[in-house]
């Protein structure tokens, strides 16, 4: 056990897996000698050598394609895309190739590969360092989408993703790399050290893919969240004094429908929160699922609290970010309905 922030936990997951499995390796922009712009791959090149931790050319398309070729050979590559905003040049290789390889070859090939990428705003990164494109990948059959919200889950989920025999896109909420940001941006940031989920085993363990976590029990309403928004949801529930049940999805595809259904059937209300743009965000899928499966238990419409359908504006970050005020207003409304 050690106290780790999310970066240290993710770094530890790499060390553990590269130690255990000689087939595991990492590649990406600036991830080698330098250890990555967010330091997640720090020390890997020094410890495991340049052949297993190396800088790539600036070609997200190439990074993904190379990882596919390596996985087809039998390795377990972990590719870093420096920011989720830059994953699009690799989109074709992800959608047309990685996602379909097992299917189109009827199992002749499968791809045990992970694509890690930091996503989300709250760091004044402007519109090209703040995006949350997770929904796009949830529409693609053949890809699993994972988003941790704390150091313990981050390490356990990343190890599970690396050990999984299908391609996994692993989104890392960069805003909470160093501390659990609750959306109250005027308040001083608390470090992970003060958070129970910062207690992380040093060795190997997994948090299973496809399983959500009920991070707060309650009867008044169910809040579905993931990544940074889990902390915003928890803080807002407290601030608003609402007996909300908060579910951290952790995996978007396959989503843990049982946990969701059970909770919504208990509370009769559901609010979904994500930072991504609203239209056709993953909140839409969740809302559709919930009303399909819990319709007769619902006392009010399923509500979505999201980023706006605009790019992420640099100077108006806090007017874009779905923080406690937006969530609070929506909570109150959802409970009145």
């Amino acid at each position: 056990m050690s106290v780790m922030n999310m970066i240290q936990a993710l770094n530890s997951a790499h060390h553990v897996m590269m130690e255990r499995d000689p087939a595991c390796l990492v590649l990406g922009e600036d991830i080698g000698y330098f250890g990555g712009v967010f330091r997640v791959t720090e020390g890997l090149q020094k410890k495991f050598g340049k052949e297993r931790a190396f800088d790539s050319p600036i070609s997200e398309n190439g990074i993904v394609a190379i990882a596919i070729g390596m996985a087809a050979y039998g390795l377990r590559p972990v590719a870093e895309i420096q920011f989720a905003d830059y994953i699009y040049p690799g989109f074709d290789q992800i959608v047309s190739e990685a996602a379909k390889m097992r299917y189109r070859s009827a199992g002749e090939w499968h791809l045990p590969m992970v694509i890690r990428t930091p996503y989300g705003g709250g760091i004044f990164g402007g519109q090209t360092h703040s995006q949350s494109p997770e929904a796009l990948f949830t529409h693609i059959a053949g890809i699993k989408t994972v988003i941790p919200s704390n150091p313990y889950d981050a390490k356990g989920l990343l190890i599970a993703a690396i050990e999984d025999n299908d391609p996994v896109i692993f989104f890392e909420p960069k805003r909470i790399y160093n501390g659990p940001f609750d959306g109250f941006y005027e308040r001083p940031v608390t470090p992970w050290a003060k958070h129970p989920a910062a207690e992380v085993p040093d060795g190997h363990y997994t948090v299973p893919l496809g399983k959500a976590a009920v991070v707060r029990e309650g009867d008044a309403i169910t809040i579905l969240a993931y990544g940074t928004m889990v902390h915003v949801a928890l803080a807002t529930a407290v601030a608003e004094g609402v007996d909300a049940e908060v579910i951290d999805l952790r995996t978007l595809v396959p989503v843990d429908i049982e946990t969701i259904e059970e909770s919504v059937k208990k509370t009769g209300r559901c609010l979904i929160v994500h930072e991504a743009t609203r239209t056709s965000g993953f909140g839409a899928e969740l809302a559709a699922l919930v009303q399909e499966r819990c319709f007769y238990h619902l006392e009010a419409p399923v509500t979505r609290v999201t980023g706006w359908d605009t790019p992420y504006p640099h100077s108006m970050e806090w007017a874009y970010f779905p923080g406690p005020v937006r969530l609070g207003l929506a909570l109150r409304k959802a409970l009145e309905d």
Partner: protein
Amino acid sequence: MNKQAERPNRPALCLHVPEPSARPGDAVDFSHVEIPAAGSVRRPDAGAAAAETHALVHSLVRVLDDEGKAVGPWDPKLDPETLRRILRDMMLVRVYDDRMYRAQRQGKTSFYMKCTGEEAIAIAGAHALDRDDMCFPTYRQQGLLVARDYPLVQMMCQVYSNRGDPLKGRQLPIMYASNHYGFFTISGNLATQFPQAVGWAMASAIRGDSRIAAGYIGDGSTAEGDFHAACTFAGVYRAPVILNVVNNQWAISTFSGIAGAELTTFAARAVGYGIAGLRVDGNDALAVYAATRWAADRARANLGPTLIEFFTYRVEGHSTSDDPSVYRPQNAGAEWPLGDPIARLKQHLVGLGEWDDDRHKALLDSLDAEVRAAQKEAEKLGTLQSDPYLDIASMFEDVFEELPWHLKEQQAQALAEAKAKRR
């Protein structure tokens, strides 16, 4: 918008749009094609610096001369057995193509693509590689499977999407896949396999393996970003890979000038990346063999990738969906100055006294019989028209290693729907 009026001192710009030498109605015109004499191109040592090959990228490696004699430094000096095997494989692919093309025309399947005139590239290439080197083909390298003795019946079952289809009816005809035969699953998305081949080769190098990879791409597809990624990564990490550009001068209706062929050769791309490059007569089985072996030796010696342009011509239409006579002169293929790869290798063997017309005729008949027999076998398992691969439960398998809840639900729904349809 246009500021021209304000700047009379400046000449007006105009756009250049490349146009092929001949369109329907015009006489076929290959006068622009430069063909150096067989044997005239130097052969650097396989260990030479990449730059040493850059003088060759505007020329053409050729071994078989007009009389079918093997001449010059690139002659691989193959024994008659191997030569006959290559000839046989090329003939078999052509017979197979003709049968499957006809089957499509008969409505037995939805689609087919021939490689007529390009047989040497896959066949001679396969024989120059090790059996367990991994190939990342396009849809025009069916010859790789034939050269590696992949069962014809299984190829046909894939084309028919029938009960025997190893790909369970999931893929368009000709999109074969076989790990065991070193034939990577063909993608309908052009060029994607090219950087994947590099990744596979890098993995082989990382593991201290000795197997190399061979990627294939068409002239038109070299314009995709994947081509650039492949060449960039292969060069930077000295990946043990052969990057084969099959320049058959057409991309559906679009001639190679739209891919840049007016400006330079595809082999010249190698100069831009600082990797080894060769330009080879793709209709000359011996040249294909020699160049492939040269590049393979180089890769195995950790000297990195070689970009090889195989200069050839797409004799037939792009696919069964295409009629080339609407965008290029009728049977332009027949006049292709580099001839037919089968005829040329046959002539060579005959010249060696290792082959003759009777044996050729006999072989052709037996191959034809072999293919017809295989077709009978395959059709016993159905065709797309008669009874295709139809296992609805299987439609949901292999999306993931295991079926998640939502696919299980959809699978049940699909089965219920099928029942309802039968009612």
